[in-house]
Every structure is written in C-alpha cells, then in structure tokens.
C-alpha cells in the first residue's frame, strides 16, 4: 500500500506464483489507484470553493482501477508478452547448460505483473534483479515500453489535475518543471557514466566505453541513464542496472532525485501532490515579492496551509537523515553495507531515501534483510507515504473551503516560464540544502577520492 515495493526478498525463489499474482499484483493495482485518488482529491480542492468535501476515496479508487489501470495493464501486458516476457503458469524449466550442469530457469506470469509494476510505478519485479533480468526486460524495445509505461500515468495525472482544476496551462507548467529536472538528471547520469572511472582507464579498459560496470551490455550507458533517472524521478524503483555500480556522481543523481521528493513526475498521483506542495512553498516565498499575500490558482496560502506544507516537507529529511545517521553509528546498521567508506554511507542513504521516498529501488550492496533494516525501512516507508498524505489531504481540505480570488494583473502568474524556473530552483535549493552535507560525505566524497585513486 505504500507504493514502495522494496524487495528484501528475491521474488522468484521465495514466493509461489499464486502469492505473486494475488498478493503482489493486487497490491500493485491498489497502491497506484490510491495515489490517483489522492491526486484527484487535491485537484478538486482547487476547483471547488466554500465546500468541505473533496470526493469519495473509495469511488475514486474503484474508478482509477477499473477505468484506468486495468485496461492499460491489459494492453501493456500483451505488448510485453509479445516482446518476449514469459507469461505462463508453468513452474521453473530445467535446462542443461553448455557445461553440462543442470540449471533451473525461473518462469512465471511475468508480463502481467511487469505491466502494472511499471504503470503503477511500483517497481517490485518478478525477479530479484528486477528489470536487469533478461526475462523481465529482454530487449531495447521492452526497455522503452517499460519507461514509457512508467511515465505515462504519472505524467497524465498532472494533465488531469489541470483539467479538474480548470487550469490546463498550469498543468503544462508543472509538467515542464518536472521535465526540466528529469532531463537534467538523465544528462548528469549519462555524463558521469560516459566520463567513466579513471581507475578503470588506468587498469587498461577502453575509456571510450565509459563505465560499464553493473550495466547490461544490451542497454549501455544511455538507456541506463534514462532508466535510472526515470525510475528514481518517478518513485518507481524498478532498475535495469545496479545503481551501486554507477560512478559516484552517476549514483548521486538517482539518490538526489529521490530526496527531492520524487516529483519528476513522481509516483502515480504522489508525484503530483508532492509537486503541489513544492508549488505552494514557491508561491509563498516568491508571491510575496509581487506585493500580495501568496495565492496559488486563486487560493490564498495562509498559516494553516503553510503549517501543513512544512509538516509534509519535514518528513523526508527526518526519515532519511534521521534513520541514516543512526544506522551509520550503531552496529546493527553498520552490518548492512557491504562496502566501506563513503560508498557504504551512500548505500545506507540510498536505502532510507528509497524507502521514505516510496521508491523501492535499491542501490544494491546493502544487506537489508536484517531485523534493524526491515523495521526501520518499513517505518521510513510508512512515514514517507502516509505521514505525507495526511498533511497533503489536510491542505486540500483547507483549500477547498476557501473562496477563489479572481486573477488580476497584480497576481503572480503561476503558469509562465518564470514560475517554472522558480519552482525548479526552489526544489533544487530546498532539496540541496537539506541533503548537501549528507551527499558531501557520501557520493561527493567518493567522487573526489576516486579522482585521487581510492575505491571502496
């Protein structure tokens, strides 16, 4: 339900087909649908005024599942099956390898689960290694389809927001902000990965290849960059490469994208309402500079909304930095990372960021299946999902009650490029200010050490 899907288990070895289908696939549907329901509720808050109702959660949940997720999932699942993902109820297939050893190849109803995993930005794969597995993500086409389906609903929910709130231009502005940040992220990973690792070069690898460690050769850096940025920008959490093996700065990007609150375009629904919280903060600070008390889409942003927005903003640093700092000093926490030094710290940070951000992607390298990590990661997930939803819905309720202020030439326009730039700036600076010290000790330190020839 938290739309996190952190896998401490390896799907194909520990669970039966029935439990994957009934237990997990249903969860995949419902968590995505509840994200949509909340996003729709938030959108209505801007459309209505003087009311204390913003819709019925159960009705929205059912509608989202029946009319949006299910039809799309069927189409995408068929497409995945056509692209070669196994969709069978047969158990494992035994094969004799070239060396003559007996190998068991796991099979199962993958295409159907893969479809909703991507559409619902859940990310929990059938296989332990997720979308890096040839069955889960056999080709470049399936890789694109996966990325496309990840983006599709999250991005269109933003459009839905504009439609419901009656401000389509606003929706485009929000989408532009998301796109700008996502493109920066993709570019940064690609740059860091193609620039490669000087140690590899020193070891005699072709520098033109960049850093290929941990990547599937059938994807290369470009598609890895795309997938990594999208999956973390999106709260999806499926991976097609092991983020731990990215270069330090290449790894910093997905980590930072999650810490920004996964609003690019974020999980299904959750990305939208996360971005609305940022937009509220942006108009509050910038709106004052035009000499009016701040308003967003005609709704005054006052003390109550500010209190709730700050409450929501506090969740991520508290869950990520709080748990990471404790894990970084107590023995139970220190037992987790398999690497030492800053890389180990990055693994811990990534784990909590991923959990609190309801991403569920793993940096790999952290043995999270211990009582300490299972408990605290679970708590971080809950906090990141529900402790965030509660203030967001409260903001929506409070805004729905307010009268709409008609716009005038003295109103701060929130659908132009200036606002988009500001929003991007506020997201980067606010996120940067919170997490810079931690990032400095993790990936940034690792990067400067790598340049100095030290690895972990």
């Amino acid at each position, binding site marked *: 339900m938290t739309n996190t899907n952190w896998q401490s288990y390896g799907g194909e070895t520990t669970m039966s087909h029935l439990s994957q289908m009934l237990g997990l696939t249903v969860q995949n549907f419902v968590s995505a649908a509840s994200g949509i329901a909340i996003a729709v509720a938030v959108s209505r808050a801007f459309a209505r005024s003087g009311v204390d109702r913003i819709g019925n959660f159960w009705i929205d949940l059912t509608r989202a599942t029946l009319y949006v997720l299910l039809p799309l999932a069927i189409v995408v699942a068929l497409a995945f099956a056509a692209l070669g993902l196994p969709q069978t109820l047969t158990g494992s297939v035994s094969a004799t390898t070239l060396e003559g050893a007996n190998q068991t190849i796991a099979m199962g109803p993958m295409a159907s689960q893969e479809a909703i995993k991507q559409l619902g930005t859940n990310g929990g794969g059938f296989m332990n290694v997720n979308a890096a597995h040839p069955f889960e993500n056999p080709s470049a086409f399936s890789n694109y389809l996966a990325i496309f389906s990840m983006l599709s609903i999250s991005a269109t929910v933003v459009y839905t927001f504009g439609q419901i709130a009656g401000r389509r231009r606003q929706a485009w502005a929000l989408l532009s902000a998301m796109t700008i940040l996502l493109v920066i992220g993709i570019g940064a990973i690609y740059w860091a990965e193609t620039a490669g690792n000087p140690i590899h070069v020193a070891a005699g690898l072709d520098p033109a290849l960049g850093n290929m460690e941990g990547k599937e050769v059938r994807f290369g850096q470009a598609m890895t960059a795309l997938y990594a940025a999208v999956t973390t920008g999106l709260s999806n959490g499926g991976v097609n490469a092991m983020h731990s093996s990215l270069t330090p700065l290449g790894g910093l990007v997905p980590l930072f994208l999650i810490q920004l609150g996964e609003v690019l375009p974020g999980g299904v629904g959750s990305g939208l309402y996360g971005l609305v919280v940022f937009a509220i903060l942006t108009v509050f600070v910038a709106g004052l500079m035009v000499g009016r008390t701040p308003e967003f889409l005609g709704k005054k942003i006052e003390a109550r909304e500010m209190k709730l927005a700050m409450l929501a903003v506090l969740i991520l640093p508290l869950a990520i930095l709080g748990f990471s700092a404790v894990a970084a000093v107590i023995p139970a926490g220190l037992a987790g990372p398999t690497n030492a030094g800053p890389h180990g710290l990055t693994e811990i940070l990534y784990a909590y960021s991923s959990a609190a951000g309801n991403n569920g992607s793993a940096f790999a390298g952290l043995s999270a299946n211990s009582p300490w990590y299972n408990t605290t990661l679970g708590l971080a997930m809950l906090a990141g999902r529900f402790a965030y939803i509660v203030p967001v819905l409260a903001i929506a309720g409070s805004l729905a009650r307010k009268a709409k202020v008609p716009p005038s030439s003295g109103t*701060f326009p929130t659908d132009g490029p200036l606002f988009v730039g500001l929003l991007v700036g506020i997201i980067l600076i606010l996120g940067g200010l919170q997490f810079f010290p931690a990032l400095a000790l993790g990936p940034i330190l690792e990067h400067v050490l790598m340049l100095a020839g030290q690895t972990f």
Partner: protein
Amino acid sequence: MSTKAVTPSVLDPAIMLPALRDALIKLDPRQLVRNPVIFVTELVALVVSLLWVQEMATGVGAPAFSGQIAAWLWFTVLFANFAEAVAEGRGKAQADSLKHGKADLFAKKLLFPSDETDLSSEVIPATALKIGDIVLVEAGDIIPGDGEVISGVASVNESAVTGESAPVIRESGGDRSAVTGGTQVISDWLRIRISTRPGESFVDRMIGLIEGAKRQKTPNEIALSILLSGLTLVFLIAVVTLYGLALYSGTDLSLAVLAALLVTLIPTTIGGLLSAIGIAGMDRLIRFNVVATSGRAVEAAGDVDTLLLDKTGTITFGNRMASEFLPVNGVDESELAKAVLMASLADETAEGRSIVALAKSDFGLSEPEAAGGETIAFSAQTRISGIDIDGRQIRKGAVDAILNFVTLDRTSAPAEFNAAVDRVARTGGTPLAVADGHDLLGVIHLKDVVKPGIKERFAALRAMGIKTVMVTGDNPVTAAAIASEAGVDDFLAEATPEQKLDYIRREQQGGRLIAMCGDGTNDAPALAQADVGVAMQSGTQAAREAGNMVDLDSSPTKLIEIVEIGKQILMTRGSLTTFSIANDVAKYFAIIPALFLATYPELGALNIMGLASPQSAILSAVIFNALIIVVLIPLALKGVAYRPIGAAALLRRNLLVYGLGGLVAPFLGIKLVDLAISALNLV
C-alpha cells in the same frame, strides 16, 4: 495633502542609543520566544558560551575559537534585537508624546448627564471612564477619551494627533462630532459621550501597533514565521544527523562547529528583520498621517482588488464649475456671457464664482461697475437667482425653474434650447438656464471637474491590478460621463448606503478584497464591511469606529499610498526571505569542506572560495551571517520600492536583485571577512 514621510536616518543618535539599550533588554527569552529563529540562535549561543567556559576551565579544546563563535552568535541575536528596536524607536517618538499627553488626564464626569442645563461635575482619572459616560470639557481642557459631541460647539487643537496646528471646529450632530482623546479644547465647551474604554482608544491602539512587544502578528507574518520555523527544524535535522554521518566518516564534530553550521543555515536574516519590517511599515503609514487600528488591515491593503472612491472631493473637485456658455435664439455668445456675469456678481456660491471666472477669462470681460441693481438671491424654493438692473430681469437657475419663469415648458421650449440642455446632461454636466425677462438667452454648462493627474493615478492602480469604482449620488448618465473622463473602471450611480454595502458584499463573495474611504455616519456600515476602511479624521465617530484606519489629513486619495505601503511590507518580507535562503548555498561551501578537511583533505575541492583555514572559514560564515542583518536594517526599515509595473515584471526584478544577489553576495562577503580574519590573525 500633507506628505510628512520624512524618514529619519538610521544613524540618528536619538534613536540609536535607546535602541542599543533596548536590544539588550530584548535578550529576555520570554520576549524572544515570539521569534523562533532568533530564540533558537540565543539558545545555541548560550550552549556555545557554556562550552567556552568549560574549555577555559579544563584547558581542553580550542577556547579561543569557541569563544569567538559564541561572541558572534550573541551578536547575531543582538543585531536582530537592535533592528526591531530601531524600527520601534522611529515610531516611538510620536507614541511617547501621545502617551505623555495621556499620562495624567482627568475627566470632569457630569453628575447629572441627562440634565442639559446642570453642568456640575466630579473630577475622576481618565482611566476610570466607562463607555457611555458623559463628560464636560471646557477651554484649556484635554479631552479625556475618544467620544462623540452631544452638545456644544468648540474649537479643538488636534495637533497632538494630526500634527496640524490649525484648530478645528467640533460640534454636535453632522459630520464633525467626533473628538479624539489627548486633543485640547481651545475655546468654548463640549459635552461628550465617551465611546471607548480607557486603553482601547485610538491613540492606545496606535501606540500598540508600533511597540514590538505588544504588537499582534499579522496573518501573513504568522504564516511566514511558520515557514521560517519549519526551515529551522529542517536544518536542525540536517545538522544533528550530520553528527552521526560524520562519526561514520571518522570525524567527531565539535559542538561549536555544529552550532555555527546550524545558526548560519537557519534563516536568521529574515528571522531577525521580520518584526522590524512590520513595525517600520506601520511607522511609514503614521508618517503619511494614517493611523491603522490593526496590522491586519495594512496587510490587507496590499491585497486590495477594488477601490471604492467617492466621486466628490476625491475624483472631482467638490464643486461643479462653469465650462461653457451655450447661447440660443440667435443671442451672441459674448452677450450671454455679459448677462450671466451680471447675474452672478452677487452670487457667492462656488458655482457662481466659477461663472464669473469663466466670463472674465474666456470673454475678456471686466468687472462691470456695481450699477446698483437689485440682486435676487438663490433660494431652495425658487431655485433661481439673478439681478434686476436697468429694467432688465436677468435670471439663471435650474432648467425647469427658468422655463417656468419664462412661462414655457420642455415641450414648448425652442428645439435649440432643448438640444443644448440635452447635450450638457448627456456629457454628465448640469445645465443652468439663463433668461432675460421673457426671453431665453441660453444655457450654462456646469461641469464636474476631474482633478488633474487623477487619470494617471487610476492607470497606475490598474497596472497594480486594482480596479477603481466611483461611487456617486449622480444619475447614471452623469456618472458614466465622469467615470469615462476620470478613467475609473466602474461606477455606482445614485448610490445609497445600502447599495454601497451590497456592492461590497457582492464583490467580496467573488473573492475580492475591497478598500473604501468615507466620513459620514451613513458610510459606517460599508466602512465596516470593507476589508480596508479608511475613515476621515474630520468625519463622524461612527465612521471612525467602523473603519480600520483613520486618515488624519482627511484626504481620500491617500488610499493609493496605503495600498502601496501594504504591498511594500509584503514585498520586503518576500525579498529578504528569498535572500536569506539563497545565502545558505555559499555558507555550505564555506563550512562543509572546513568540517571534514582534517579527515578527507580531498574535500578541499569544495572550498571554492579558497578560504584560509577551516577555523577561519567557519568563523567567517558566522560573522557574515551576523553582519548581514545590520547591513540590511536600512532596507528593512525603508522597504523594497514598489513599482506599478505588473506582477511578472516586478517579480523578475526582485528575483534578480534578491534571489541572484542572495546567491552571489555571501560568496564575496564571506571571502572578504575571511581575508580580514586572516590579516588580523584571529584564528
């Protein structure tokens, strides 16, 4: 209109010295807790001071370093207090004199309030007065409290409140019945019904608004405080957890450096200046001779969408003036002018004088000798005035009355005459007919003259996003003509008090904020309903009670300045908040590499400012953080200038100055401080 907005210099010793003392008094945590950011800074300063004492006693650690950090943290708090004290100091001079005047006031409370003739009274302290008490004030007495004159006429010196030394007349009934506590009766006597409790009078509220400790925070100020407190919490989390993360990385961070990091990150700049901005805004309003009875109203002024302005006296001059003569029946224009000149010579009304002035200026006529004719004075019954001279009976007056005089009516009047009358009425003027005996001579066009420059002001308001609505008792035709000439966006013709109230309610239901001004008792309901209601000091007590601001100069166009001051306060807050947050980027680049340089010299790559040593980097950031408050005090007091150039352009401009400036300035500032510290060998 008086513009007494002379800004005293921040460096004025009369303000500086008491402000320095007040800054120390304000260290009292019970006062400081109202300002969470600075309160946290004070707590941190206290902790680092204790650490310094402990280090001095035990000789462990670096007492010279933590001592300096502690000192600058205290300075940060003191500077913030100083900013507030200076802002208060500027308004206090006026408040103090008002307070002084009120200090030991006594009231002559009438023993037999219902008996108009028996003026025997007992003397009680003004603080013991209750609402509804009837008091007597005589020549030389100070009026003990706000109230309404119920009988008597007196001249009152209100300079203590308005700064205007010419005495004003106060009398019962009508629009001049309100008196203000603390003003002095110069002649005659008044019986006054007290209308406010002691301590809640006009002057008391005015004092309360400029004294920081008693000041109520405005709604936006509260919301901003929440944002700042939230950011403080976020940074508290970032700094506390950094201790754990640093331990993992093999660095045991000292309390002093963590404290320094925390204080430089939390928004101390805006936190320290926030209340100074609000106080200075109120003070600026007082300098414009407007007294607000709540800070909320001033803030609302910045948000106003619609201005309701009375036509008469605000948009037009109070009186109609002759603008042209329209002859009929083949009469020569100059002949008409000559006739109306004679008919108006004895007419002392403003309209009469304007006719004389027009005849002289446009037709070059000189004053004819008073030929001893017999003047007919205007009366409400006849609605005609004129002169009987040389056997001629020249009359001017309302069209119907003159037609009656010449024994005609509108249907039988010459078409040329009717056309002239209609033309004048259609353009919003008032036609006056002129007759000589039984002959119609022509029509005088009396026109409401729009004040010069008012159209430009409305254009500026439109650029601010504010709609102007003219309110008038005129008929819709007249109103429309004047509205288009003055450039207002809308008008309310034949307006009754109920219509005004309805209009305001309707606009408010559409989510708009309304400002209006008024002076009469019949304005009171609308003034109370409006979000910003400016009552004229010369108006009735009912109007003054209903509004939430009082204009001591009684100048209705001042609403425009009030709106600008409201906007300035909001803009200054936003700009300094942006500046404060943008500053943090540079501070990170100063402090983070400094913290870990010992363990990981490679992180020196982040030291892009090239600061001399880890200690000097941290100290520089703390010093910069403290000094920037002082540097920005003048801006906080003066306010960011408002220009009516539209929201987007304004935002772009302020973002460039305070956003980009806020990013860049600390890089330079911290580097400069670092150079100074290294030169002085402080660490």
